[in-house]
């Protein structure tokens, strides 16, 4: 009888120890997953932002019903994670500039009498929005959570759920597929605060610029109007020392 009691107590004790061990392992694995998610996101950002200060050309071709109907050319100057200056180069937009400082955005139109302050909603117009061009450091804007590992086509991917750290972020939620092998972005889904799935993206091609492997082509699909998409082609990415005053919102003598 005594030995049965001792055996039962030992069983309870071992069960408790086992539960604590499993719980601690689970907690540990969750912590490491969180750390991994942040590290993964930071690593994935390096495929879109090769240097702390750089310049890159972006050509956007809009397609409607499968046919290309518009082309836009931009020169993007980025410094750090929160300063972006975009010069519009295509004939119908020449003279326009866009400046983004953290969550504040201005557009300089040659035909208005002042710099125009842009609201977060205005960042979303078009298949490729201002935010898609000017805001590519997701680790600075979003908190990642590792969801699962799954195949995207024939590529094994780790799926992250990104939640906006601030209301001023371009999107409120992003589902982000990163190649398990090297954290290279593969595809993404973008959601508004309302939960509406507004856009999807595929990261189609990578190339070497200045010794760095960087994104070369991205396709954005409009999930509201399913008959249109935009292809963003990146070229000429080079590191460049950019003066702080390039990112001063009151500067009028821009190109």
């Amino acid at each position, binding site marked *: 009888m005594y030995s049965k009691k001792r055996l039962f107590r030992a069983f309870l004790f071992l069960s408790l120890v086992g539960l604590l061990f499993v719980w601690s392992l689970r907690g540990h694995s969750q912590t490491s997953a969180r750390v991994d998610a942040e590290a993964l996101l930071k690593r994935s950002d390096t495929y879109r932002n090769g240097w702390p200060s750089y*310049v*890159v*050309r972006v050509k956007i071709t809009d397609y*409607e019903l499968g046919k290309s*109907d*518009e*082309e836009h050319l931009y*020169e993007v100057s980025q410094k750090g994670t929160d300063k972006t200056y975009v010069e519009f*180069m*295509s*004939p*119908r937009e*020449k*003279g326009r500039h866009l400046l983004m*400082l953290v*969550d*504040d955005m*201005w557009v300089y*139109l*040659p*035909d*208005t*009498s*002042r*710099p125009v*302050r*842009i*609201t*977060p*909603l*205005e960042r979303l*117009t*078009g298949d490729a929005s201002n935010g898609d061009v000017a805001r590519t450091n997701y680790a600075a804007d979003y908190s990642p959570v590792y969801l699962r590992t799954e195949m995207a086509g024939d590529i094994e991917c780790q799926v992250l759920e990104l939640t906006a750290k601030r*209301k001023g972020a371009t999107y409120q939620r992003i589902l982000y597929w990163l190649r398990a092998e090297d954290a290279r972005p593969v595809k993404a889904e973008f959601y508004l*605060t309302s939960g509406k799935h507004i856009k999807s993206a595929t990261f189609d091609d990578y190339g070497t610029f200045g010794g760095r492997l960087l994104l070369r082509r991205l396709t954005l699909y409009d999930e509201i*109007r399913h*008959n249109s998409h935009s292809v963003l082609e990146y*070229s*000429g*990415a*080079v590191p*460049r020392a950019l*003066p*702080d*005053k390039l990112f*001063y*919102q*009151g*500067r*009028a*003598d821009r*190109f």
Partner: protein
Amino acid sequence: MNRLVIIPVLFALASVSAYAQAGSSAESSAFETRYAVQVIDDATFYANLREPLPATLNQVLLEPSFSMHYLDRLSFSTSLIGVAATYSDTSTQLRVKETYGGLSAGDFDFTAGRKMLRWGTGYAFTAAGVLDPPRNPTDPSDRLNLNEGRDMIKTDWVHGPHAISAAWSTAALAPSQSNLHDTTAFRYNVLVRGFDTSLIAGDDRGADAFGGFTFTRVVGQAWELHGEAMWRQQAAVLAGAKYIFSNITLVGEFYTPPNTTYYRDPGVSPQAGRQHYMFLSAGKDRLRERPGWKEWGVSGSLVANLNDRSYTTVVDVNRWFGNHFDAYVHFAAPAGGRNAEYGSAPYSAATSAGVSFHL
């Protein structure tokens, strides 16, 4: 004749522009250049003229621009406007919109020449834009780009979010009928907690000293607020907001200037007292939601003088054809008493139609 001259000029500029565009890449180089050319043919038809004036004004405008930067240190920029107008007779005019040189040294920028400054935050009106081009509330975007800058020397000190500007502008080269004086002006601009705020002060030689402030602030996802206040003999105040709704941009402004020589509109009597204005606008840049309509843009606005209850209704429609051509219609219909600010226009409606070429 003027159009015959424009065509070879256009081709010459196109060749130069193509060469410049090919040469300017994102790769770092000592010289960077930019070219742009716009050609506009604009015809305005006046309906129900009350005075013996021609009913049609035709204008052809050639607007080349060129900018050059050397090592982010030296810069030169010029923007010219050639206008050939046919109204009661035919006239041609060359205007210098901007031509200035710049030197950048550390946190300092120095500028000399004719330059457009935009210190005011108002869209249709401005109280504090002491060196800005004039605002025309019935054409706030200056659709023919006819505004010219002020002749000035200017120094800017920019450090982080802070900037201090000092400008001295001469009126010596201003048109004789203008009300401009030599102006000395200072501005402190800072972005703090989302407020883009400026303090402005200065003096018009032989006229008034002035001081005031401007601000813009984005609130939430869809609102932008802006305002200006300036004291120059009396207070002038502007308050405005922009709201985005279903990709439609709504702008509203209220403006109250004193009836002083500086602020008075030519259509307002000196005895009329302080004036109050309202501007309302709704526009959609591209009708993307309708298949096949994304090249179209539509906007409508109303400018009203709340004192004499006169107003002008404005409708703009434009359409792009490819990347280089667009066509537009601009319709303005003034209404109100014969002695009222907007009602005194000598026509019941002005309809402008035109095409423009962009390079």
